[in-house]
């Protein structure tokens, strides 16, 4: 069965992903993502009864290190790449939230 994505599906995903798509992108992604998902459907035909999923490929267990305080990145350096920062207040500025 071929996977099809509607424009509404694409717009819903874009909202979840915080992307604002153009009309042309919505149509293009509906088609391309549908094609890729159709191809990927072959995994659904595999019998995976009692097969554990792999999320970590090398089982390392819990990794420990001594909890030694070290100086963090200083505030000036942390703010240096910000598109809008108040150097004086030492804060990142964003558009109003409410």
């Amino acid at each position, binding site marked *: 069965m071929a996977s099809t994505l509607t424009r509404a599906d694409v717009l819903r995903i874009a909202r979840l992903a*915080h992307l604002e798509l153009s009309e042309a992108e919505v149509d293009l992604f509906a088609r391309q993502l549908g094609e890729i998902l159709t191809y990927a459907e*072959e995994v659904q035909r595999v019998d995976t009864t009692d097969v554990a999923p792999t999320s970590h490929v090398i089982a390392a267990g819990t990794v420990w290190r001594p909890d030694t305080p070290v100086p963090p990145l200083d505030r000036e350096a942390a703010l240096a790449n910000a598109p809008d920062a108040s150097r004086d207040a030492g804060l990142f500025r964003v558009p109003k939230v409410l």
Partner: protein
Amino acid sequence: MSAGPLRDAFASATAIREAIGRREMSAEDACRHALDRIAATDGPLHAFQHVAADRALERARTLDRQAPPGGPLHGVPIALKDNIVVRGVPATAGSRILERYVSPFDATVAERLERAGAVIVGKTVCDEFAMGSSTENSAYGPSHNPWALDRAPGGSSGGSAVAVAAGMTPLALGSDTGGSIRQPAALCGIVGLKPTYGRVSRYGLIAFASSLDQIGPFARTVADAALCLEVISGADERDATAANQKVPPFASLAAAPEGDLRGVRVGVPERVLASGLDPAVRAAFDESVRVLARLGADVRPVDLPHSGLGIAVYYLVCTAEASSNLARYDGVRYGLRAGDASSLDAMYDRTRSAGFGAEVKRRIMLGTYVLSAGYCDAYYLKAQQVRTLIRRDFDQAFATVDAVVMPTSPTPAFRLGERTADPLQMYLADVFTVTAPLAGLPAISVPCGFSEAHLPIGLQLIGRAWDEAMLFRVAAAYEQATPWKDAHPGEASGAYDRA
């Protein structure tokens, strides 16, 4: 005319290090040589995103004041893929969203390289956030294959492969998630290694798919790749996935190859090779297997029955992880911010839409979909289960062989522009490279011949977890028995090579 390292653009890292040790040349000489070569050849090739000339020269001069010369890479120039950060140096990861980003910290690999005496000369072009197989997804234009300028160098670490293949630097680092070191190494005719997952710290690697990403070396010889891997390997308390595994003396193992392969069992997964293989790649592969047998290897068939599912599994897993990793690009702490948004949410949406290119958006969308409520079990969980089956195939194969051999890429270098219209076709080119990272295994690509159009072909060896030493042994013996490492681009055409 002297063939010393100073005059030879294709001198190995080992030869440069030795010449500096004998005071036949200085670290500054080696650095200037690399910078001159970049200036002379990078116009048409576009391997470099950013050349850090002043920083490199200063560093080289500092090394020259040390007596006696120190580390194993003392004075050796190296290039880093632009998704690996160096303090005070720009890092774009090929994306507009990081156009003006300058890293406030060093990646662990950068720190280890510099501690070993390497001189970082710059950052190389890559597909945006390492998503691609050709460098055509770079927001700053692709690199060009030095063997044929109208062809892709492969990707996503294409710029690093070009820098090494064209003799700009003897070494480079890339990152490999689904083949992004091995495929460009094959298409550019050099050596590229993806280490075992956990061998090398990813602290300071701009994350794409965290269960797969691994940093590794490009070099023109197996011994140089081994030397570089030894320097960058080992546990790191800043990356809990960098495993506490003993780092073998890779450099000395590869520098003195045993010459023959008696007692080494090499598996050929014939079923994996059944379809879609370019005839020149097939011929070069078959001949390579005969060479391995002549060297004494015990060549036998192996079966990897779930390998055909590798691409589907890979693109479900990597896009899911990417959608999560790339959520951090929100226009607040660093990177681009699209102006004039009236609310925080609108600012996020506009910033990400303006900052990401088409392939990155496509993968974020796909990953968001396969993780979304109602679809997660059918796609993401299912892919993780089939990933387990792919791992088990390798476990079974490695019960009877020491390495699995297959081509790196189904075709030689394709033309720039040829595959950009159809993302799925581009993905299918990863058929031989995606399974090793899905299983966490080390894999190396070594040059194994040329097509009729004189485009390089790569041979891939996959090994057991933590057994890069076996890959180096087989690859070094193969390299020694064949002429490929001495073939360099530009010699035939002279098109760009005036250095």
